[in-house]
């Protein structure tokens, strides 16, 4: 196992030397997750159209060409977890969890987790569940849980935009500035997305501020 990791690391090092690993928001950011269902591309947190709600977007499996998107799937052994600190100590007080099973994305929480840090378990009961929207669908399938949590899961346009290729050229020393206009490296690509809209009252945010991070966790 250790030697395999060294080999993988060595290959990754070579890939970086020749400019093979992408720099992006978080797409393909480390050897372990590159091209894996656990690879996070982006996380977004914003006020919903209904100002009483907050939206959490967890995007994974980036740079999907349209031709590859129909075959893209969520992994039943990957726990997608939005971690929320509501008292400023950068330790999660609440988690919102999403895990795929039998065509559905099941949401757990927001719930106070029984363990914090880099090991997780599914916490509590399902609070919302939605059929994963197939690539062929003309409109997104959404569902609302009993406590007002809305959920969507399925392929979406990658909302990230960046002239990544020119940034790489700058870092490599083959260019000294960005182009104007730039070229969006992520145009025309898709991601596997989980979107959860949560009533703010469920977040216990007594200070009006929360700290959020997104994790993916592989079944041990």
């Amino acid at each position, binding site marked *: 196992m250790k030697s395999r990791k060294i080999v993988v*690391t060595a290959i*990754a*090092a070579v890939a970086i030397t020749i400019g093979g690993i*992408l*720099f992006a*928001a*978080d797409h393909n950011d*480390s*050897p*372990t*997750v590159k091209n*894996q269902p*656990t*690879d*996070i591309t*982006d*996380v977004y*947190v*914003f*006020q919903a*159209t209904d100002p009483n709600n907050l*939206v959490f977007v967890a995007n994974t499996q980036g740079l999907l060409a*349209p031709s590859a998107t129909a075959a893209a799937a969520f992994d039943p052994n990957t*726990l997608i977890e939005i971690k929320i600190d509501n008292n400023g100590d950068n330790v999660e007080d609440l988690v919102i969890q999403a895990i795929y099973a039998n065509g559905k994305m099941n949401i757990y929480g927001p719930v106070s987790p*029984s363990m914090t840090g*880099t*090991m*997780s*378990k*599914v916490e509590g009961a399902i609070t919302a569940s939605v059929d994963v929207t197939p*690539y062929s669908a003309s409109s*997104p399938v*959404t569902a609302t849980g009993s406590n007002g949590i809305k959920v*969507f899961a399925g392929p*979406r*346009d990658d*909302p*990230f*935009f*960046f*002239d990544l290729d020119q*940034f790489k050229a700058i870092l490599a020393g083959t260019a000294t*500035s*960005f182009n104007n206009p*730039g070229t*969006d490296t992520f145009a*025309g690509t898709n991601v596997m*997305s989980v979107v959860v*809209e949560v009533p703010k009252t469920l977040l216990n*945010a007594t200070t009006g*501020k929360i*700290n*959020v*991070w*997104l*994790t*993916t*966790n*592989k*079944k041990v």
Partner: protein
Amino acid sequence: MKQQLIKYSLIFFAFGIGFTACKKDSNNNNNNPTLYQQDDQMARPAINTVFISAANKDQFNTTAPKDMSATFGAEMKTKLLALNPGYTTNLLGLTPDQFIGVLSTDVLNASTTGTTSFYDGTHVLTGRALNDDVIDVELTLIFGGPDGSANPGLTSDHVNANDAAFLTTFPYLANPH
């Protein structure tokens, strides 16, 4: 008779526990839960990709935010000053130590009481909206100097919006291509 009843009750009780344990084992028993080990994490955009060396990227992804600053702060400061050797302060008035102090605990700050924006000139780190040009914000804070005007070729990638229009209703993200 009474003894027999107690005996049967105990047997039933034992079975009851046994069944409960079996049932929970297949889901998530607190005594023997299915565990999930962290593989990747992200909060602010591009922190791992820009500031962390190739050798440490997996480690960054598996370090809890509360431990990141102590583990990666020095490396991130070195990287900042390698990217921009002329860095003094940035548009937020942050020295290298102050800027890295913010970045090296990688959490996405969000407001639950108002406008959510990565940076819109007024709101600083109150969330991340879909149309926020987070890359230009980060480039400006890294390369733009105290008033954002330094290194003008490096402070915007001149890609200012997504290629697809976002939805005005849930789930907000555009349909796939």
